[in-house]
């Protein structure tokens, strides 16, 4: 039985239980066989010689070619022809043989060698063993495609084991790619050459004073001690990875662990060529404490960041009464509007006399353009990026492209650019753009230049009331979150700040939604949800029951394709609203998974019947 404990993108922390023993993944299967040193501190084992007392043990299937009977306790790997894909006599032949072995074994492990089909339906398989990953590290483009294909074929609720991989430097990235189990074979192979492995680097056994693990404490290291060191390093790394998954910090860990060219290639291939597949797994909101640290170039293409940029261009629409675009620099403090610099900008805008006509947007890396009303939305509300004032060429191209599309799509009457030191943007801005920042955006001279520039531009089309301005901004935000239908939430609504939150009512006393700073997304009341019913793709159709607590995946009939973990969703039945809650998984997983919580309900109709 597999229980998903936490998710972060394609990675998850899961508990696999078989015959009363369980292992938490991601994890390393330590090899146990006569003649090989045994690492006794492991959490789970791959054994060619009986179980390891009291610990989760996977039994090796042994040789398929030599046709010896596999013996050993479940869960046993059936023997299979370990033939790399593309080298089979007939494509799919090895997989067919593996499938036959799997069916005969009655165990939960299905090897997936050679060419495998688009969908793997074998119901009893809990673990897919994918031997192709090891050779794939030499051709990362193919490996990225294979891992995506495997993940698609595997569906949800199955684990993936990549035999022969388990170097501490690779664990975080492989977990990020959705691999749940690795083994200690590469730790042994490195030890044979006297190589001690660390997450991200290597050292020879002879280099002293580098490590304080129990294996290294004895001084001079023989091959066995080097192996044990490698085991400690790998075990500690899988624990680190699991903690990162729980915190929503795996991507940061992965970027920090990149130390070999193939790893960077693999990540880049996933980001650039498999974004649409990967993005579906990434949450739209994270606890503010998780944040998003965009420290290197790799961060520019991480799924949450690319999704945000795309939604700003494709889904977002500017407040109609604010035709003057004011481009502002980002601030270290998030949300921007809390920062001293942004308070100063707001004061300068106010002084120009008609702030409602001015639409503020922040130009930043890696998010491109952030309309100010989205500044608490994840990741805008909690990202961090090193600011040196120097823009790298890739960032420049990204920001310029984003800005150009944003301005064109927004149909603004005027653009004021209050960005110091960003001359490279000039080509992306329309003719007539007014530049006001001087050398420092917050200097008194720059701020008064800003007010002076805004005064005539913002007062061209009459005054925009504060209330109307904030209603329109809220409409844009609701649209960003819920799609075009989201604007219905803003009809005749009233928006009030309440502490650090934004509270939205129908203008009477009924609350519709709350924008909590901590969550970085709108939370709906039943009234708010009713306004969106039938208008948004964020609906989860359930079976005929009245939900309370948590809706589980088997109860889901259909889920809007855009739903991602963390999304606010309407829970419906036959067009009738049954409640509102937070998605715990993506739409695809809700529809396909056989178990696991799908929606954590926030509000629901009475469970006693009747209706709300």
């Amino acid at each position, binding site marked *: 039985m597999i229980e998903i404990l936490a998710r972060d993108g394609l990675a998850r922390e899961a508990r696999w239980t078989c015959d009363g023993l369980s292992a938490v993944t991601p994890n390393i299967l330590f090899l146990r066989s006569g003649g090989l040193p045994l690492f006794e501190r492991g959490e789970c084992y791959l054994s060619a010689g009986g179980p390891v007392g009291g610990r989760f043990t996977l039994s090796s299937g042994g040789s398929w*070619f030599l046709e010896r009977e596999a013996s050993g306790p479940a869960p046993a790997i059936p023997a299979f022809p370990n033939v790399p894909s593309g080298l089979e006599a007939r494509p799919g032949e090895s997989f067919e043989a593996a499938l036959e072995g799997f069916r005969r074994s009655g165990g939960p492990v299905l090897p997936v060698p050679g060419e495998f089909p688009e969908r793997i339906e074998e119901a009893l398989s809990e673990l897919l063993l994918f031997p192709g990953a090891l050779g794939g590290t030499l051709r990362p483009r193919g490996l990225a495609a294979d891992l995506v294909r495997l993940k698609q074929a595997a569906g949800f609720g199955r684990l993936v084991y990549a*035999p022969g991989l388990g170097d501490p430097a690779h664990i975080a990235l492989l977990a990020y790619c959705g691999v749940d189990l690795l083994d200690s074979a590469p730790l042994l*192979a490195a030890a044979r050459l006297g190589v001690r492995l660390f997450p991200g680097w290597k050292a020879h056994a002879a280099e002293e004073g580098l490590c304080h693990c129990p294996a290294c404490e004895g001084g001079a290291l023989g091959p066995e001690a080097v192996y044990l060191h490698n085991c400690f390093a790998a075990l500690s790394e899988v624990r680190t990875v699991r903690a990162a998954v729980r915190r929503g910090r795996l991507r940061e860990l992965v970027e920090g662990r990149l130390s070999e060219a193939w790893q960077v290639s693999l990540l880049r291939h996933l980001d650039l060529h498999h974004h649409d597949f990967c993005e579906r797994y990434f949450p739209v909101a994270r606890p503010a404490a998780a944040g998003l640290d965009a420290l290197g170039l790799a961060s520019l293409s991480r799924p949450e960041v690319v999704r945000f940029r795309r939604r700003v261009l494709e889904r977002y629409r500017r407040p109609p009464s604010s035709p003057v675009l004011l481009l502002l620099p980002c601030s270290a403090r998030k949300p921007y509007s809390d920062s001293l610099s942004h308070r100063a900008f707001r004061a300068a805008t106010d002084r120009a006399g008609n702030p409602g006509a001015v639409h503020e947007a922040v130009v930043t890396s890696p998010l491109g353009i952030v309309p100010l009303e989205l500044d608490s939305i994840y990741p805008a509300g909690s990202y961090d990026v090193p600011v040196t004032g120097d823009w790298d060429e890739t960032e420049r191209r990204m920001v310029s492209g984003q800005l150009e599309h944003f301005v064109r799509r927004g149909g603004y009457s005027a653009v004021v650019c209050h960005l110091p030191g960003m001359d490279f943007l000039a080509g992306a801005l329309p003719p007539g753009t007014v530049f006001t920042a001087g050398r420092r955006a917050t200097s008194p001279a720059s701020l008064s230049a800003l007010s002076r520039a805004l005064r005539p531009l913002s007062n061209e089309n009459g005054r925009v009331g504060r209330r109307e301005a904030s209603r329109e901004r809220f409409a844009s935000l609701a649209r960003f979150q819920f799609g075009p239908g989201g604007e219905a939430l803003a009809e005749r609504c009233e928006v009030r700040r309440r502490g650090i939150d934004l509270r939205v009512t129908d203008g009477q006393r009924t609350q519709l939604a709350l924008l909590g700073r901590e969550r970085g997304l709108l939370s709906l009341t039943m009234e708010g949800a009713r306004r969106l019913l039938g208008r948004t793709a964020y609906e989860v159709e359930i079976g005929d029951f009245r939900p309370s607590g948590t809706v589980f995946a088997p109860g889901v009939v259909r889920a809007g394709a855009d739903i991602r973990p963390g999304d606010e969703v309407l829970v419906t039945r036959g067009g009738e609203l049954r409640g509102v809650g937070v998605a715990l998984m993506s739409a695809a997983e809700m529809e396909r998974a056989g178990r696991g919580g799908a929606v954590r309900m926030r509000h629901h109709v009475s469970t006693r019947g009747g209706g709300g």
Partner: protein
Amino acid sequence: MCGYHDEAAPASGEDLLHQFGEALQRRRGERIAKVYTSGSFFDDGEVPPGIRARILGELSGAFGRVVIESRPVFLTEGAVSDALSSCPGLEVALGLESASPRVLERSVRKGFTFSDYADGATLVRRLGGRVRTYLLLKPPFLTEREAVEDAVASALRAAPLSDTVSLNPVNVQRGTLVDRLWRRGLYRPPWLWSAAEALLRVRRGLGEAAPGARLVCAPSGAGRRRGPQNCGGCDASVLSALEEFSVSQDVLHLEKVLSAGCSCMPHWRQVLDAGAFAEIMQDALKPR
């Protein structure tokens, strides 16, 4: 494994005789003649029956022993007895490669079974010919451990049907499937230790009471990048032990070299031990 698959050229019977004549000129005076067609000497399509008889007749007079090779399917009673009457004592080499049906089918893609081989070998010996059996050490997809086990098991089964069993460690020939595996980092040619150990186990397994066939091993490309190899430091001494054993059949040569060992020997032993896990492509485990 075989690099000849794209080197065939059409040849008439006259072409063959011409080629044979040339070769004969250069090789007169030697003791043994091996006519390796890289195909089947008994295939009428390759060597027409008349030509076959003339070649064998000439060789029979000129050499002490004559060896030809063939797939078992061409070993018909008529063809074999004709050949033996032109060339008494003829030795027929059969490329069995492995006695394991799965290795034959999926790894070697041999196209015949052990019993096809056994029928052919039995026929040749019944009619008074000699049988030489070729086996592979480490065809593709097998771990080092599986390779040793397969070679030992195969040799023990083939030896009673053979006069000579020749163990051929695989080398990486260009343009072959093994070459593709090797280039992808998924194949390492066998260790010379593996050859020595396999021969030792077979010789002991056959026992002195039932000496059975001669065991020989003459690895080609040994010690080279694409050939069977150890660490580089001990390759020459293991190779010469293999040669001395092949000549004398005395296991002492193998025992001596194996017990002398080398610093790479524990490494090789561990590769064998780790090879118990056939789900891991051991040859791909190269720390980078």
